[in-house]
């Protein structure tokens, strides 16, 4: 079943079975492997991408549901010359990542969080990041990164 959509600014057609999840379409069909699968119950957030600019868990959406819509993955965040998005840069500067596995989902959630709550304080950031699990960083530096990234996005 061919589905047309826009991924990272590019029009694509994915021909996949009707029960294909968006995350599998991205990873297996489009080979955008920066979006990760960390669980099977939509709890960990490693698969977070933007759908029409809003963070969603791509393991919880069918490819067919996003026909005609615009998906942005972690691969689409840096500028064409490779310069990182201010949130990506803040994660590096603040050491907001270790093994890197939750990181793409964390960055996608963080960007959305800052768009919705540009002035979020620490408690609000922690609450808003509830949908993304990280086992390495203890969240301390992720919170700092989100604060710094928010400033960079203004």
């Amino acid at each position, binding site marked *: 079943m061919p589905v047309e959509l826009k991924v990272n600014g590019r029009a694509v057609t994915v021909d996949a079975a009707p029960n294909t999840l968006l995350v599998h379409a991205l990873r297996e069909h489009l080979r955008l492997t920066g979006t990760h699968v960390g669980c*099977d119950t939509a709890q960990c957030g490693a698969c977070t991408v933007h759908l029409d600019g809003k963070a969603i868990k791509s393991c919880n959406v069918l490819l067919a549901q996003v026909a005609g819509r615009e998906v942005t993955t972690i691969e689409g965040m840096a500028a064409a010359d490779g310069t990182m998005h201010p949130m*990506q840069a803040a994660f*590096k500067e603040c*050491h907001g990542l270790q093994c890197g*596995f939750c990181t793409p989902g964390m960055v996608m959630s963080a960007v959305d969080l800052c768009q919705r709550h540009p002035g979020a304080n620490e408690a609000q950031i922690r609450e808003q990041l509830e949908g993304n699990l*990280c086992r390495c960083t*203890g969240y301390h530096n992720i919170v700092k990164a989100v604060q710094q990234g928010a400033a960079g996005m203004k």
Partner: protein
Amino acid sequence: MGAIDFAKLPHIGEPLRRKEDYRFLTGAGQYTDDIQLQGMKHAVFVRSPHAHAAIRSINKTAALAAPGVVGIFDGQDVANDKVAGLPCGWLITSTDGQPMKEPPHPFLAQGKVRYVGDHVAIVVADTVENAKNAAELVEVDYEPLPAVVDVRDAPKGTALHDVAPDNHCYKWAIGDKAAVDATFAKAAHVTKIDLVNNRLAPNPIEPRAAIGSYNRANDEYTLYVANQNPHVERLLMTAFVLGLPEHKVRVIAPDVGGGFGAKIFLYAEDVAVTWASKKLNTAIKWTCERGEAFLCDAHGRDHVTHAEMAMDKDGKFLGFRVHTDANLGAYLSTFSTAVPTILYATLLAGQYTTPQVYVEVDAWFTNTSPVDAYRGAGRPEATYLLERIVSRAAWEMNLSQDEIRRRNFITQFPYQTPVALQYDTGDFHACMNKATELADVAGFAKRREASKAKGLLRGIGYSSYIEACGLAPSNLAGALGARAGLFECGEVRVHPTGSVTVFTGSHSHGQGHETTFAQVVASRLGLDPSQVDIVHGDTGRVPFGMGTYGSRSISVGGAAIMRALDKIEAKAKKIAAHLMEASDADIEFANGEFSVKGTDKKIPFGQVALTAYVPHNYPLDKLEPGLNETAFYDPTNFTFPGGTYICEVEVNPQTGETRVDRFTAVDDFGTIINPMIVEGQVHGGLVQGIGQALLEHCVYDRETGQLVTGSFMDYAMPRADDVPSFTLGHVCTPCTTNPLGTKGCGEAGAIGSPPAVINAVLDALAPLGVKDIDMPATPSRVWQAIQSAKQ
């Protein structure tokens, strides 16, 4: 080069930003599941739905006819191939001199399944979906047997293995029992404790994955696997299970999304995809689902302990005796047997001068997932026990939590404990003092009043931990039962133009070795860290390696690199001496330049490197060309990180909810190379420890043996709003037994924090008469404890 000179080099102690981050932040990391090989098939495992059952028969006919299926194998196929079972890497000898009971551990079950999730068959198909559908069609006729999941039930449970009719694996002990008992006879006070160290699921966010690939043309195998020690994986798999020649097997652990111990071990799935890849002559990928990970990744902890501390009238510890029942699960995982013994009991002197310690450990088989090393591996269990009983002793003796610790701190080093270890260095008073200051203990009383005004109970908890890292001198480990060496290997390859590639047997799965190790090498050679690349995780590129666990990478792996650098420097000095027409002994090397002592003659490192590869003006009669050195380093002792953690919690007595309000961690890691990375390690460890104390618990149903906490919806992982930001501090007494002065920092946070949290909870609840609570101190448990204390 020695540790004192090393610490003064440029880049040592600098918070350099990580070299690996760009690829992770832009989605370019390559984890095992991201790899797609030509013609690759997909594997799904048929797993036991029963905790304990005999397998009467397996019928694969319908499944083999299902769409896309290329092969299905079960335990009979494994037996027919005369392939061995998974080995245990550490032999424990019981107190009666008998070796531990070591039952077979086939990688596909033969005749019996022993835990929910046990591997029954591997189904290989063209897609994951077809493999899953076919797996549903494999008919297994089970005869269920009674299950036992709790160590306290194990002795009377139905036997899992013929070799262990009472489910007992070993009884092990350390210390002088008679001498300890004698201290109790003269004690002014004895404090007793019974506690459970809760079973945990490691849960790295990247689930395990493996791709076995056989190449018939060269008769070679490649295994891509999410693993912390690819050479160990290869050694165990080739020599002990499949009987393959090592040189025909390449194991690659690419980017790995966290390990925490769970990815140390040789697992059934890794072996099965490798073995099946030859049988089907194709590459086979298996990617674990989270639900499977809960069932079959090795779990951590699961101890039940009784302990008693004898004291004099001033609270000086005289003797400590301990009995622990340890749950090993259904089979012996790779390092399972060492965790509740060598890595646990030897730490029970802690930071204290307790002259006599005796520890007895009974280890049991149960119908649960195998239990093995999880972040800290034995040392968290030791620290939790010791720091709980020390705080309880303080309360019983009417001393403050810090005072009882100060009265018993070791102050003279080196210090020989009564349980085998010799601490080389430390400053426990300095850690306590710094923690007291950073935690603003002086302001606690005021904060307690403020909490009270809000109807909340505030408590403060202490934990002064010591742990042993850098495992270990190989000969000592061998004498204690290790079946492998525990050295590390490093190769330093200087390229003709002076840049460097380092090949290390350590493996980074979040620790940032690509940055820290580059700092070490760049500092030594006077280069910019950008000129040094670190290669790890590939038996085809790295000469050898024992991998990363037990916070050993910098102290053992880094030391191997230092030894290789010593060789590089020695050879380069000879080349420089030749170029400057001086004697070798007069050459000095600093800041990337070779100079002749007492003259102004000097040449840069790059010129020497180029000369080594373009040896026109070169002492070819005395020296080989090239500048490439390999070193193996075997440590002479463990390293001993230590510190004091202080936690403050607020408990809501109406709901039982506990919130960690402040957490201060002061650690002595010796020399710190990259403080940003070290602090990140501490943050992560603290949250795993707080998770154990307040949230996490693997629960099996005591009757059926079913895993109750089998997903992220049932097992409470710490989330961002469950924890606070942290206050960290450092004390530095450099390690005296390795050339960097480092002690290791990967596990400290998870080791030191659980007792600090629980002691704080008990301090908060003390006014209500609550004296004990087990981890995890969930709202329901806290509320229950409050209600029980009222009666």
